[in-house]
């Protein structure tokens, strides 16, 4: 047996076997995930992959699909440059192609000359581990490696390879689907899997068996629990039944996080499973103050006197590598705690919310530290009364309410039934489209990214971009308008005749020196195409400034 393996690995002609492995198997997986429209098919494809793939490759797939991508070995402009050299086409034609395809990795895969390979590509982990080694090597070596690799691959494999190099592996699979497939393959509960693959682990040094073993959880003290996420409440709250069975809280607009103290160490995780402990020195004192073996769920928010500051200020904090003294003073970060997931080293998630909350309140009170406060429970007796309270959310610096069943356990992932978010209606403004650009991914080669303007006297002032909110049919219609009404061309951007009026919805507004209009919007999206309105009926810059005055402070 040893011999035959040896022979296979040194042969120079492609094996005739149809059985796919390594990079080919992974590419097949990415293809199904990228084009399939049914969750079940994706689940099947992942299970199939986990059943066949090499253990080392599986670890990398879990890492990649849970946002732990390898460090970049080369940057996008190098890839672009090397591709242009290989195909002998002018750079502008590469650009033109890129704008049509809307994805750099795919553009390169489509432009490269056909491979004349004599061998199939290597395993996924082989390439990724090469990337890691190459980070420290000369550019000429990296270039040679990339070009040699390209020439061993077909179009689809090159796309996947380039995606690995450029990062951003968004190919239509949620972490939840991956966890479910993994659970099916190794026959464990999905919530157990979700916990085991969370936290701080290095795909280079972790084996598949280690990753999924029970010890991994107890060995890694930093590991957060999977977050329990709520769906938006679309029906009337009356449909939830007896109001006394429900707990209401403000829904904050910060970063959802878990604050962990285990083994006398403190960890702060964001919902995106990013370890952010160092970003928030405000929490560091808690390492001494909190008891050991504890996990809190809550919101990371800048606040003064328990009143949240706008989200835009939080962004200035997380964008920085080092936090300055000035920032610590102007945007002090607080942890608004609303749940207790672990207590005295024990998993507390199966205990009803009401009891978890009691322990949590006592804990926060005893800790008595300004950086840790309790997210208050709102007293109410009827749904109508609660609706009235909700309408004042903006004054509280909140974006609505959370409704949680008092006897609910803490589940994993997004689930219906026990927790709901009941957001307030967004702010809206009518404006006109002035620029358009082609989109990416499934919107490639369609003008779907727009810039909007409000009136300022007889001028138009751009104030926001928005990418979502129209149906495919409406996008096609606007795309057609842009093609007929483009006035000027600036690279990929077209200025268009200001004729189409849209209503933009957004969650918040803040002053911004970076924008011409002086304001920055939070979560802007198109809420309606106002075909009934003419461009001279849109809102003005004055209107925006009034909103800033009302809600932006």
């Amino acid at each position: 047996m040893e011999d035959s393996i040896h022979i296979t690995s040194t042969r120079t002609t492609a094996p005739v076997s149809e059985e796919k492995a390594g990079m080919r198997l992974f590419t097949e997986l990415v293809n199904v995930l990228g084009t399939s429209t049914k969750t079940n098919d994706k689940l099947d494809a992942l299970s199939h992959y986990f059943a066949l793939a090499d253990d080392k490759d599986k670890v990398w797939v879990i890492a990649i699909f849970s946002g732990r991508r390898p460090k970049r070995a080369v940057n996008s402009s190098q890839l672009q440059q090397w591709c242009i050299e290989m195909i002998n086409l002018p750079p502008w034609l590469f650009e033109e192609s890129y704008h049509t395809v809307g994805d750099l990795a795919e553009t390169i895969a489509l432009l490269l000359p056909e491979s004349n390979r004599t061998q199939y590509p290597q395993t996924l982990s082989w390439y990724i581990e090469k990337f890691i080694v190459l980070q420290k090597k000369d550019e000429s070596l990296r270039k040679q490696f990339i070009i040699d690799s390209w020439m061993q691959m077909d179009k689809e494999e090159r796309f996947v390879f380039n995606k690995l190099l450029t990062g951003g592996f968004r190919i239509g699979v949620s972490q939840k689907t991956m966890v479910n497939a993994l659970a099916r393959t190794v026959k464990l509960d999905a919530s157990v899997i979700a916990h085991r693959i969370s936290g701080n682990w290095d795909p280079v040094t972790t084996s598949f068996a280690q990753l999924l073993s029970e010890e991994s959880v107890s060995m890694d003290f930093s590991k957060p629990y999977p977050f329990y996420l709520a769906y938006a409440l679309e029906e009337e709250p009356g449909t939830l039944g007896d109001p006394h069975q429900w707990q209401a809280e403000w829904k904050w607009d910060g970063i959802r996080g878990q604050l962990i103290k285990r083994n006398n160490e403190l960890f702060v995780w964001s919902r995106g499973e990013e370890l952010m402990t160092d970003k928030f020195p405000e929490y560091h004192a808690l390492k001494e103050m909190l008891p050991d073996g504890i996990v809190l769920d809550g919101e990371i928010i800048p606040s003064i006197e328990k009143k949240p500051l706008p989200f835009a200020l939080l962004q200035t904090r997380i964008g920085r590598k080092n936090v300055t003294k000035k920032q610590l003073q102007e945007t002090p970060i607080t942890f608004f705690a609303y749940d207790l997931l672990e207590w005295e080293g024990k998993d507390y998630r199966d205990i009803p919310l009401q009891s978890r909350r009691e322990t949590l309140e006592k804990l926060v009170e005893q800790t008595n530290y300004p950086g840790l406060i309790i997210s208050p429970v709102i007293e109410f007796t009827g749904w109508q009364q609660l609706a009235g309270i909700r309408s004042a959310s903006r004054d509280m610096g909140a974006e609505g309410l959370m409704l949680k069943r008092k006897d609910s356990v803490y589940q994993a992932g997004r689930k219906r039934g026990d927790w709901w978010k009941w957001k307030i209606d967004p702010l809206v403004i009518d404006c006109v489209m002035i620029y358009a650009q082609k989109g990416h991914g499934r919107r490639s080669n369609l003008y779907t990214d727009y810039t909007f303007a409000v009136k300022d006297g007889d001028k138009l002032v751009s104030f926001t971009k928005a990418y979502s909110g129209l149906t495919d049919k409406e996008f096609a219609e606007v795309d057609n308008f842009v093609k007929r009404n483009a006035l000027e061309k600036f690279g990929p951007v077209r200025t268009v005749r200001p004729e189409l009026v849209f209503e933009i919805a957004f969650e918040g507004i803040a002053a911004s020196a970076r924008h011409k209009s002086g304001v920055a919007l939070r979560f802007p999206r198109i809420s309606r195409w106002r075909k009934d309105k003419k461009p001279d009926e849109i809102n003005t810059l004055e209107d925006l400034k009034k909103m800033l005055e009302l809600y932006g402070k």
Partner: protein
Amino acid sequence: MPLIEFTDKGLYCAQGQFYIDPWQAVDKAIITHAHSDHARWGSKYYLCHHQTKPILQLRLGNNNYESVGWNEPVYMNAVKITLHPAGHIIGSSQIRVEYNGEVWVVSGDYKTENDGISGQFEPVPCHTFITESTFGLPIYHWQPQEVQFAAMRKWIQENKKAGRTSLLLAYSLGKAQRVIKNLADNVDHVFVHGAVYNTQQVFKNAGWNFPETEKVTADISKELFHQNLVVAPGSAADSPWIKKMQPVSVGVCSGWMQVRGNVRRKNIDAGFVLSDHADWNGLLASVKATGASKVYVTHGFQSAFSRYLNENGIEAGEVKTAFGNEEEEEALPDQIGIETGANTE
């Protein structure tokens, strides 16, 4: 005055007093092929290839048609006109126009691969060449059609095994005939939408030996659909029409399927890169083979393609026309009901 001018009504030869693929009603129209953006209603006289005539009759009704074979000259006021295979769909022709020793060729739509039914595209030497550029970017590169048909056969097998209908969306004139001819042997029945059926019948009446197709009707059982192939134009994908076929796997045949974003945007299950147009290399090779010293580039990526030609020593200009892009217009479900391309008014 140039031999062919670009006017509001379309490409016009003043000397011969005829238009080529005009987009308004005129006295004399020469038609490259029967797609609706090239063959429009209302002209008093139409000249086309023999194979195009029955489709024009189907689509435009009875008119004053004259048809010719490849390379059979027709004279109009001392202008010599001949038709040459364009390989795009059945009957599609390039139009060669000669007067006083000057030769212009209008390509219409064309593809360079011989698909077995549309004729082999032949480069026609000329001074001035008017070319399409639907896929005039180097990202468009076709594999031989057999590779795509093999992928479709595999897809049909998988669907049969899983008990799903294989619904292939393909333009009713052109793509549909190609896929039916090449896939019919893999199933017992090819069910088709009425638009495909009518086109198919016209060709059968004209003597083409095409496989039998059956119209989709209300009394066909689910099980029968699941084991066979359905071919329909893109407009059918959204209609209640396909409810009866569930579960169904929807495949689209189009050059646009080369780009992943298009496949994902259509929310379809399989995209097959099968086109009736030339790819980048096909366009370049064809332009070069004509030996033309001046090239006009119409519908498609005309700006990029003409710039590239200019940089490579071939004088080229862009021309805006009202020709659409039927691979997108008819074949793709979410485009239905929306005008694409430009300037029809």
